[in-house]
């Protein structure tokens, strides 16, 4: 949907969300920026551990554990700031790089010190983000980090794909182990952290509390980028910003599957979202409105995965193709019951069979549709859906959100 995204600064001012004027070095420093660099690495690590900071890229792995693993390794180490936001419904990473590049750099300098890395690389495909960070590095006058121009793509920011790309290969995942913390860029132990995770590390030393960037979209409204505290309920968030989630949500960008309207009461925390079989992921929520249809939404997301997978693992390219086909048949009103049974079988059987999480995300999309929307499935088997017929089907997903264009300050 081609509607400009707006920035909603939280009441009382945000930590990471400060408006949409690009922050230059003078502004960054005037607002207390770079203060994180005055703390000892031990004190910062203690603060990260105490806050229970988890990675904001999608997987939600504890940041302190990642840092400790690389810190404990011997020999030269590398830090990679992951700014490759492949989730179509998320814009928060590009917001940070385009609007608050110095906060990202501060986080990189901090993380680099924490693990004693001798290289710090920002990995990003978005040209305005890369330009903004390069300009910020120039403003600082010291070449403290490199910017790697990545290929855009859903799998491009997966951590082994990113390592492979920086080492000169294709931006496609590799089998694990080894993980980058064991053997990453140029074979060295590599700390890969999402740009919001890095910004959060810096902010933690100033605000002593966590927060979460969220991209809210769907139901025909202009998407909103904002910042919340953990534990806010999706229903309240949707209501506050005028979104209709009458038929549920897509959670965690495209990685947390479909959720029924009742999930609007689940607090947005890592644990609570896990407990309902979903994920907080990158913090993107798509509201599925009363004019929309969960079957059409699932068909759109699975068609996206069918195009966006790396075409490497047979289980993934055959499996996402097959699942996308079955849900598309449901959407089009041509499916038979047997196809739904097979869809259920694939959604369970194929989990964990790909080299990266893409196949699992596709399985979760199918599985959550079957689990939470049995009545809709039955209706779609009985007769074509009028809502599905009205919704657009295009070459790209209809849930893509446009990144924020910063205003001139």
């Amino acid at each position, binding site marked *: 949907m081609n509607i400009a995204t707006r920035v909603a600064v939280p009441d009382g001012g945000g930590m990471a969300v400060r408006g949409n004027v690009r922050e230059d070095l003078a502004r960054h420093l005037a607002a207390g920026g770079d203060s994180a660099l005055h703390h000892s690495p031990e004190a910062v690590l203690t603060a990260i551990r105490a806050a229970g900071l988890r990675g904001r890229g999608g997987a939600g792995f504890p940041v302190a554990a990642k840092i400790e693993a690389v810190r404990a390794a011997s020999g030269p180490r590398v830090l990679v700031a992951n700014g490759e936001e492949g989730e179509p419904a998320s814009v928060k990473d590009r917001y940070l790089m385009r609007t608050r590049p110095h906060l990202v750099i501060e986080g990189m300098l901090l993380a680099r010190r924490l693990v004693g890395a001798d290289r710090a690389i920002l990995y990003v495909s978005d040209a305005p983000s890369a330009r903004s960070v390069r300009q910020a590095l120039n403003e600082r006058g010291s070449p403290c980090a490199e910017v790697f121009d990545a290929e855009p793509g859903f799998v491009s920011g997966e951590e082994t794909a990113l390592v492979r790309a920086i080492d000169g290969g294709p931006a*496609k*995942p*590799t*089998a694990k*182990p080894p993980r980058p913390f064991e053997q990453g860029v140029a074979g060295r132990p590599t700390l890969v952290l999402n740009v919001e995770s890095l910004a959060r590390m810096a902010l933690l030393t100033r605000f002593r509390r966590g927060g979460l960037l969220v991209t809210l979209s769907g139901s025909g409204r202009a998407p909103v980028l904002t910042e919340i505290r953990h534990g806010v309920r999706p229903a309240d968030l949707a209501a506050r910003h005028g979104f209709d989630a009458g038929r549920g949500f897509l959670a965690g960008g495209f990685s947390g599957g479909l959720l029924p309207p009742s999930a609007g009461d689940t607090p947005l925390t890592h644990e609570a979202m896990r407990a309902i079989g979903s994920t907080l992921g990158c913090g993107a929520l798509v509201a599925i409105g009363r004019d929309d249809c969960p079957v059409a939404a699932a068909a759109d997301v699975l068609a996206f995965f069918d195009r966006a997978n790396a075409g*490497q*693992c*047979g*289980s*993934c390219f*055959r*499996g996402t193709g*097959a699942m996308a086909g079955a849900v598309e048949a449901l959407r089009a009103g041509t499916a038979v019951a047997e196809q739904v049974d*097979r869809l259920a*079988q*694939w959604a369970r*059987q*194929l989990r*964990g*069979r*790909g*080299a990266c999480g893409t196949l699992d995300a596709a399985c979760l999309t199918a599985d959550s549709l079957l689990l939470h929307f049995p009545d809709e499935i039955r209706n779609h088997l009985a007769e074509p859906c009028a809502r599905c017929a009205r919704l657009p089907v295009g070459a790209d997903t209809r849930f893509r959100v446009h990144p924020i264009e910063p205003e001139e300050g």
Partner: protein
Amino acid sequence: MRVNVDGTKCAAYALCAEIAPQVFDLDDFGYAVATPEDVPAALEVVTGEAIEACPVQAIRRLT
């Protein structure tokens, strides 16, 4: 002994599941996955044979 199938290499030759069906499982499309558990001692020999037999060397010995 622990093994895993590199999903990016497996080409659905199915030999592994024929040789050691207790260790390797095929999906509906013929691609293999290995048990996430330790391979029982009694199955280590056939598992080794499956590793040797895989035409694309997709099976990795982790421990």
